[in-house]
């Protein structure tokens, strides 16, 4: 694999592997078992920090639409609803995370994957495009962290 890229979040370096594509909702995606596997990027994980609780509001084999709400996450620093990264069918959610979501923090690009999906019409980005996307949004994100949503 080619050296991963890193996006500097202040002093923290968010690692972005080059062996996958990226979505605007800060998930990565990678082909697996004839489907696409999705997980959080290190950028998202850094913002959230330790994941305490993960809950999916839809089950396996569910057809979803882009930006449809599919779950909720609570972490040491944040909480958020979670949304489908594209249209398609979510075939299965990572079962081990429901027991213990800490794999997201420990191995976000590996065992901490979130779900596998038959994805259609995915608007995904290359790692370079995602870097540029993060760069463009970084000031806004920092303002948002200051809380003025």
């Amino acid at each position: 694999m080619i050296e991963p890229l890193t996006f500097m979040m202040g002093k923290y370096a968010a690692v972005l592997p080059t062996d996958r594509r990226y979505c605007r909702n800060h998930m990565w995606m990678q082909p697996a078992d004839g489907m696409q596997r999705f997980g959080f990027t290190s950028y998202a994980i850094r913002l959230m920090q330790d994941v305490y609780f993960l809950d999916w509001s839809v089950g396996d084999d569910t057809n979803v639409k882009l930006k449809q709400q599919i779950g909720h996450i609570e972490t040491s620093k944040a909480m958020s609803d979670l949304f489908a990264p594209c249209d398609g069918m979510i075939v299965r959610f990572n079962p081990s995370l429901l027991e213990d979501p800490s794999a997201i923090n420990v191995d976000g690009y590996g065992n901490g994957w979130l779900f596998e999906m038959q994805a259609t019409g995915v608007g995904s980005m290359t790692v370079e495009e995602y870097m540029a996307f993060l760069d463009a949004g970084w000031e806004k994100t920092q303002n948002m962290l200051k809380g003025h949503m």
Partner: protein
Amino acid sequence: MRRHRLTVVLSQAQGKHPGKRALEESVVAALIMEPGLDVSVIPFLYDLGPDHTGRMFLESVKGDMVVLSWLFPRAAFWILDRDGIRGKHGESLIKPAADDDDDTPETPEASKGIGSVNVPDRHIYCLDLRERNNHEPYVEEIRRIAAESKARAEAKTQAAAASKPQVVDLGMAFLKPTNGHANGQAAPAATELKFSQEELLKTPGRRWYPVIDYSRCTNCMECIDFCLFGVYGLDGESRLLVENQDNCKKGCPACSRVCPEQAIMFPDYKTPAIAGAPVGAVGSLKIDLTRLFGGDTKDAVSQAVAERDRELVADGRDAVGTTVGLAKRQSDKAETPKDDLDNLMDALDAEF
């Protein structure tokens, strides 16, 4: 050596929350036993009007002061500033639950703000009573502050003694052996002015107005342009001023949302950042990342526009949407040519 005294003021919570009252009482009971402190209790700081005895009492304090309140320290500090009760910012060690990693947004930036004016040479420490649920940490912290304050005063006295004929200083000491403040400003102790306890604690009516953090405010005037109720104005030196605070619409924090520096606080507002929370997560309060992860929550400006329209309509005026007071932002937007990233985003949006 003259005795050094530190003024400690506890500002009560609004209403009669039994848990909060209990903490207030135990903090005061413990502090009264401490030597070298002048302890007073006043109602909720934000609500004190200029005629309230509590406010007059605060104005009478000239030396270092600790203010305990149910407000974010930044809010309490700038409410005092707003009331003309100024001092240097005293750093408290009571902070939100340990955040010892290198959180990037916490990195102190050089202050871009225009700052306060006529700041006297004394320190004001603001402690948030929501940070701990028993009195010990507060008492301990106030002991530490008292020692810090005393050391500073002694250093100052020594410096003054070195530069002045000593006899003057000694004379002063004989005149006021107990109540004189070591910083030489000869402030009367709280009790000396005889503010009646009853007057001091009289419940003030609720108030609602913006509080400006001048360490952040850059005088950009976006708030003056945006607020259509005439709350903001300029002082004699063309500095932004909350001129007509009673024009402010209760519950509306719209100007705070449009402020590019997050310099406007509404200390009573439910959202911590608008109420003056420090940057980032506050204790158990968490950041909502829904928007970042693709949710369709409104951005700050649309929310502010909606809030303003609601108040305009409630006043029998016409809603103005985004047509008024956003000129700078709108023109900025139009003038910037689209770059590659914009094009990329557009393409992605089209694809979505």
